[in-house]
């Protein structure tokens, strides 16, 4: 923000350096977490044990503290945020108009997203949650496509409705939990331990739906997904990468961190409806994607489909079984949640890569209509190879990370809601269909003469795509890296359902 406007290159390089520093710090965080044995947040004792905790009193009169912490659920997502932001900033060097504002907004957005993943105090969480809305509005509205103003305000208002419902629910929790002195607190772990509203199921349902609305709009779950196609299509490429890669995960993270552990009875009661909505998202997203001719919209709807898998896993995880917890059911639940959390990470990488690659071709040809592409494999072989790899990862080809995640989700869910898992498999088939069709329409077939001179990826784009491809393959072949990181935290979280 303090850089003079004219030195655009300096701004861009400085932002990139900052993003890379943040990325390396997040790697350090992951490594340290590994060295500690991947502990999860443990609320079973008198004092919660939180790895990497940072807690300062902020507004003691109201019980608000500046409380941060990270465990296996958040560290992969923090790493994802850092990685995607670095990749996006590296990719965004082509921005020519209002460069300073662009990077300022981007870095603010990164703050907001990282903060959401670390926050352990509801007031702080709400602030970070809202902070991530404003830069996104501007990013879509200023640097986006032709219908950007409409998409931007739709995104903002839609998400705000959910956020305000969540605010009411947060306040309801705040008022129902008090320690022996009658003091209230906004602290997440204290509220989680106290399990508000256990006596009053109806009130618990209201609070549950308040949080649910906010997270469901963000995920997005069907039928709250209608902001997604507009926002994704009209956003600039880097904006789409962050939107699909990270912002959608804010919703699912909210489910795993706040909703399920704090309202286990409501979660169990409503798990089947949520599972059904998830399956509808899977099938609907895939079918609608298949009908799209706009490349970005196709990938946007495939996001709806993939996030459906996450929600399916989470719905299975909170399914009935409370009090009747046989070891198989518990391990199925763990498996489903592992799949869900892995899918969060993998989808971020994969869809981030997809949006970046679509951006590449849009920049070259100013076209996104699949009717007009054809035979690009001849002109840009490297690009074709990268894009095909990413698409295969997205449809869940074994050997790539997407497969592992979807596999875990489906196997875990099968043991709990077998019919939902069976329906979920349909989604995989349809996804494979539309991705293969789009590969065929874009890269194979006769070369459309208009694209004779399209240039292949340059070194900057290769460098931005490379880490994403690496992770796609790495976590497909050796998923233990991420599984070890998330499993202890998941087991701790699911322990609440006992």
């Amino acid at each position, binding site marked *: 923000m303090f850089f003079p406007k004219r030195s655009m290159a300096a701004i861009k390089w400085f932002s990139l350096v900052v993003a890379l520093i943040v990325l390396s710090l997040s790697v350090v965080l992951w490594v340290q977490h590994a060295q500690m044995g991947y502990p999860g947040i443990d609320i079973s004792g008198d004092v919660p044990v939180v790895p990497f905790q940072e807690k300062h009193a902020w507004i003691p*009169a109201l019980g608000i503290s500046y409380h941060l912490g990270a465990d296996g659920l958040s560290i992969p997502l923090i790493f994802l945020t850092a990685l995607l932001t670095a990749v996006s900033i590296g990719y965004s060097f082509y921005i020519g108009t209002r460069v300073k504002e662009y990077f300022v907004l981007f870095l603010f957005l990164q703050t907001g997203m990282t903060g959401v993943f670390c926050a352990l105090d509801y007031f702080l969480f*709400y602030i970070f949650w809202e902070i991530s809305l404003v830069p996104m509005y501007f990013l879509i509205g200023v640097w986006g496509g032709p219908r950007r103003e409409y998409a931007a305000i739709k995104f903002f208002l839609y998400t705000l409705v959910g956020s305000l419902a969540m605010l*009411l629910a947060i*306040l309801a929790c705040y008022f129902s939990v008090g320690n022996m002195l009658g003091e209230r607190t906004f602290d997440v772990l204290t509220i989680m331990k106290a399990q508000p509203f256990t006596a009053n199921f109806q009130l618990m349902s209201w609070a549950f739906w308040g949080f649910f609305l906010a997270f469901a709009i963000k995920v997005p779950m069907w039928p709250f997904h209608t902001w997604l196609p507009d926002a994704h299509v009209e956003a600039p490429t880097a904006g789409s990468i962050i939107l699909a890669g990270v912002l959608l995960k804010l919703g699912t993270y909210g489910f795993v961190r706040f909703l399920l552990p704090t309202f286990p009875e409501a979660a169990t009661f409503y798990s089947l409806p949520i599972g059904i909505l998830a399956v509808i998202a899977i099938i609907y997203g895939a079918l609608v994607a298949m009908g799209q001719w706009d490349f970005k919209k196709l990938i946007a709807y495939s996001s709806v489909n993939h996030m459906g898998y996450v929600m399916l896993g989470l719905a299975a995880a909170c399914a009935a079984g409370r009090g009747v917890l046989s070891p198989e059911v518990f391990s199925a639940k763990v498996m489903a949640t592992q799949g869900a959390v892995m899918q969060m990470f993998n989808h971020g990488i994969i869809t981030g890569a997809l949006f970046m690659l679509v951006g590449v071709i849009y920049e070259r040809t100013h076209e996104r209509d699949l009717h007009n592409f054809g035979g690009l494999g001849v002109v840009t072989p490297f690009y074709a190879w990268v894009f095909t790899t990413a698409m295969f990862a997205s449809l869940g080809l074994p050997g790539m990370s997407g497969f592992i995640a979807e596999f875990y989700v489906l196997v875990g869910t099968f043991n709990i809601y077998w019919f939902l898992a069976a329906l979920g498999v349909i989604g995989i088939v349809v996804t494979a269909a539309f991705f293969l069709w789009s590969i065929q329409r874009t890269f194979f077939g006769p070369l459309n003469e208009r694209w004779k001179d399209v240039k292949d990826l340059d070194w900057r784009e290769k460098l931005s795509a490379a880490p994403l491809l690496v992770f796609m393959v790495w976590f497909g072949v050796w998923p233990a890296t991420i599984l070890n990181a998330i499993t202890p935290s998941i087991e701790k979280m699911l322990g609440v359902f006992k």
Partner: protein
Amino acid sequence: MKVDINFYYLMPEMLLAFFGFLVLLVGLKTGRGKERHDFWAYFSPEMLAFVGLALAGYQCYIYLTKTPYDLPSWMAFGAYVVDKPAIFFKLVVIGTTILVVMMSGTLFKDRRVSRAEVYSLLIFAALAACLVASSNELIMLYLCLEFLSLASYVLVGYFRKDPKSGEAALKYLLFGAGASAVGLFGMSLLYGLTGTTDLTLIAHAIRFSGDANQAPLLLSLILMAAGFGFKISMVPFHFWAPDAYEGAPGPVAAFLSVASKAAGFIAFIRVFSWGVPIGTIDWVPFVSLLAMLSMTVGNVVAIWQKDLRRLLAYSGIAHCGYILIGVIAMTQLKTGDWLGVGISPMSSVVIYIAAYAIMNLGAFAFAVSIRNQLGSYNIEDYKGLATKNLPLAAAMAILLLSLAGIPPTVGFLGKLFILMVAVERSMWVLAFFLVVNTVVSLYYYYNIVRLMFLVEREDDRPVSGQWDWVQAAVYLTTAAAFVFCVWPTKFLEFLKGLSSRFPFF
């Protein structure tokens, strides 16, 4: 007879009165539209007004921090009480007036009028609002409200040659006179039914009155609600607000939007929350309905406004609805357990009014600043402002965020506290209205941001970033909006446990 006045606690009012006259007198020498370069030039009306207001405000601050033990202080046989809520309202009013003085410097560039009278009127209006804040007696309340109204009428119509100004002043005057008359009738009914005009004794009388008096008492309250509702621009007594704000000079509209609202609210709270003991007369359904209407009408009609002053007038009507939720909460009992540190409804109302003052004055300062450069208050003229003058546009964006209630701004804190007291008392319908209206309000606040940032600029007139007091006011309020949310502890310490109830009941 011994005069029952504690002069120490009357200092701010005395200072304001003194400086009001001083500005007027010195203004004979310095404020007449021509520049002076001798000894008197140092005593410009602006400077004197600022000094007087600053001293009065500092005195209020001292009451709260250094000498709070004698509060509440009763004077004039119970007609005048200086207690903590009153001092807070006085601080808000004085702060508002200081910011308005900052904004007013540029009003007089093209007009040959006497500057000093405006400043002196502003100080007197502030004095009147402070007097209202401390009134405990119906006649005193009425007199001080009328004092404030008269000063406001003159301020609105100050520029005689401007027909719009005259029209606005006339509308305001006629409406205000009518509303005050109705309010006075309500007060007279109340006197007739209870036999006294002192609010504490009225409360006593109502508590021990029989059931036969319920309906007339409710009627008198409804009539008084009309009188006060006019001042706070509550629906359906709000019709004067958009026209008055549009016709008045910018800084005067800013003053009206905050100070007279604050005065109206404290009057409302004194009568409805102190004068009427809880559980006796049930005015809550009536006022809740008006609050819901205010929020809805204010927000919905604001969507179509093209003039920033009218937009802020309608948004002010909506904010009045939000504050009324806090006022209603004062009469409700907490559901759930009774323990708990937290925010009392009075504190939430005070915080919201302070936050509203900050945000609204900032927005008006921005409007005045743009008008000075471009001559227009039309939001279409703000197109593409971000490319011309980014700091100003960014500041306005933050102020608009604050008005909409998005963190991390003080507007969010205000709305959060109102929501907290509402939820604590299970006032779910009103909380729902607040939440839905917040989303609606975001649309028109963000419309302005969209015009500033997302739309190309068509005309090439420069919007200079030259430092003047008006822009200073914008940046000051923006900084306050941000700082008070991130470090609110000091601010909240003062407000802890402000009781909403009369000390004896």
